[in-house]
């Protein structure tokens, strides 16, 4: 008897859940890097009282494997914010829905961030819509600049000025350092723009050829080796894979570091005592570059809740949505209303937005993760070996060979 009742209950359960289905909250994933922005963003959206979203934050470097596992188990979220770098890989693996029908109803579509759209396109379809933009910039501590006798309103415009400022700040002594970049990770976002700003390229335009060994890259490495030799960076940079990238700067102990718009949000909300300025990442003799990053909104192939997701997309592209991005440490993606969206925000966001608009680039490669993201991959290894090691030529030759091998294997 008991068993039968139990069976009966089990059989009616699916029917119940089908009935409840339309009221269930939308499931959404976002990577931990953007947690600061997306949490209040979703809260604001949910507070409107219509469609509800259940947000899960996934550790950034585990996003792809978590999603793959969930997709295989048919428990993928309805939609997610995907590091735009991964959009080509997801789209070509047939995991996403084509969103191009929506774009016809978006009069502002052409003003959406080109970098995002470019990475979202595949075979004439559009698998990703821009959600938030990000870019790398140089931030500097104005208080330390002043103490070191530098003009806090005149940020460095070339490598010589960076080195000079770093040495003067280090000369203040104690645990105050001139410069900080993680040595063993997060090197694409931070070091690629240094090479780019110097006119260097690491991949050919079609992504098929590695061009690591160039005078421009050698100069960029020489610039960092010099900073390291002058002891303006703390020793802990060598082993830092990224978690401590902002720690020293937030504590007011680091003069300059390379970071992104997200850091403006972190610093202003959590470390209001740090008085800092933002400036583009300069080249050896001026000019600048930035790593254009950010997130795309992508929709899982299996979901049937497109109208509800569309509601979220429309909110994201409203002036309110675009303003929220800037408020919590990201950049708007709608060019036509970006200035209006940032008007009430910290003006430093505009500096980042400008650096991205005028000098922003994103490498497109189907093996991006292997080449640039992997903590054991050739880019991070080159960064660590060539800057902090003794064999620059060997490190560069090895990186060139490994890059090319990984690219060849994928084709």
């Amino acid at each position, binding site marked *: 008897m008991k068993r039968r009742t139990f069976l009966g209950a089990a059989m009616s359960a699916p029917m119940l859940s089908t009935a409840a289905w339309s009221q269930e909250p939308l499931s959404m994933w976002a990577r931990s890097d953007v947690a600061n922005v997306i949490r209040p963003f979703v809260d604001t959206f949910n507070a409107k009282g219509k469609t509800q979203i259940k947000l899960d934050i996934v550790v950034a470097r585990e996003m792809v494997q978590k999603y793959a596992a969930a997709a295989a188990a048919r428990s993928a979220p309805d939609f997610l914010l995907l590091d735009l770098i991964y959009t080509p890989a997801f789209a070509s693996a047939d995991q996403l829905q084509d969103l191009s029908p929506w774009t016809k109803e978006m009069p502002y579509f052409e003003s959406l961030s080109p970098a995002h759209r470019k990475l979202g396109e595949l075979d004439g379809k559009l698998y990703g819509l821009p959600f938030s933009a990000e870019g790398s910039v140089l931030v500097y501590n104005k208080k330390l600049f002043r103490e070191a006798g530098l003009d806090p309103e005149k940020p460095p415009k070339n490598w010589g000025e960076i080195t000079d400022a770093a040495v003067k700040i280090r000369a203040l002594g104690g645990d105050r350092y001139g410069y900080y970049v993680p040595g063993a990770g997060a090197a694409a976002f931070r070091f690629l723009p240094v090479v780019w700003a110097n006119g260097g390229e690491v991949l050919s335009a079609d992504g098929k050829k590695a061009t690591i060994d160039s005078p421009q890259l050698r100069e960029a490495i020489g610039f960092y080796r010099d900073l390291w030799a002058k002891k303006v960076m703390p*020793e802990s940079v060598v082993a830092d894979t990224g978690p401590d990238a902002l720690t020293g700067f937030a504590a007011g102990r680091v003069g300059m570091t390379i970071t992104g718009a997200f850091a403006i949000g972190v610093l202003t909300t959590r470390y209001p005592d740090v008085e800092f300025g933002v400036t583009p990442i300069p080249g050896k003799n001026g000019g600048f570059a930035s790593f254009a990053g950010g997130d795309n909104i992508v929709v899982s192939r299996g979901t049937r809740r497109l109208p509800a997701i569309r509601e979220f997309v429309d909110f994201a592209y409203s002036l309110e949505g675009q303003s929220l991005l800037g408020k919590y440490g990201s950049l708007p993606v709608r060019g036509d209303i970006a200035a209006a969206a940032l008007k009430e925000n910290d003006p430093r966001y505009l500096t980042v937005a400008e650096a991205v608009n005028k000098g922003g680039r994103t490498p497109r490669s189907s093996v991006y993760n292997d080449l640039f993201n992997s903590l054991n991959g050739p880019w991070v290894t080159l960064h660590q070996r060539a800057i902090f090691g003794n064999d620059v030529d060997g490190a560069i030759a090895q990186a060139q060979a490994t890059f090319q091998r990984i690219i060849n294997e994928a084709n």
Partner: protein
Amino acid sequence: MASPAAPATRKETWKEKLRRSLRGEGGVVGQERWLGVLLILPALVLLTAFFLVPLVMVGWMSLHNWPLLGRPRFIGLRNYATMLTDTGFWHALWFSAKYTIVVTIAIFAVAFPLAFFVERPRPFVGFFRTAFFLPVVLGLGSASLLWVWLSNVDFGLFSPALMKLGLIDRPVSWLMQPTSAFISIIVMVVWKASGTSIVLLLTGLQAIPPELKEAASIDGARGWQRFRYITFPLIRRTFALALILSVTHSVLAFDQFYIITAGGPDNSMLSAVYWIMNTSFVSFKLGYGAALSIALLALLVLLSIVQLYLLRTKEGQ
């Protein structure tokens, strides 16, 4: 051989049979063998569901080009052929071998003396036993995170503490150089894992009848001789178990390298499992990762057989 069954006047119920075999009456022979099967059934089910089935699946995957996202394609044994020229994997295997040898020797060098120390009743022996075993109940992940923090050159514990003690004059970043980082991780693992070996060896030591050692002492055997001819032969099986567990854990080491140095510095600490993880989840080649896993499993089985053979107890001893 079947022993003559007792003439049954009536058929036993299964409860009686269970009771009888639990009391140890009558060997589990002949038709009673099903009882034994019944008793290990839950274990068999678990083994099938969580080991055999996944193993077969991994074997099947290893015959495919199986991307993390996308459709798998059957390629036969090509993954295994790729393995032969994959220098990265061979480097990782070599590192795992080096690590296994060093950490196993280190663990036993610590575990043996400590096991002898806590074997006999002495003041505070309970405290020492607990203290030696306590790190084992910590997760390896938490222990590794703790180690990262303790080793941090600026706001950790080791550097500032050693400076206060006057042993070093400036902070040392152990995790910066390959050799010192390797030693640092070995120290952490010995601290964390030797408790298991201590407890195993302790049970072995305590199972030795004291009369044997007394008799040996009376016959004039000295400390080392007593260990060589009495103690060690009698704890041989326990030692083999502790050794195999330690070697297996070390060959499969991953967490500590992933958490403490992310395989660095300078990729010097990429273990075999780390390489498999990178292949599967960074390069997204699940099929090839599966093939590497199968190879590692075969190697591990081989290692265990060799160890069991070397430490076998001869018949009649």
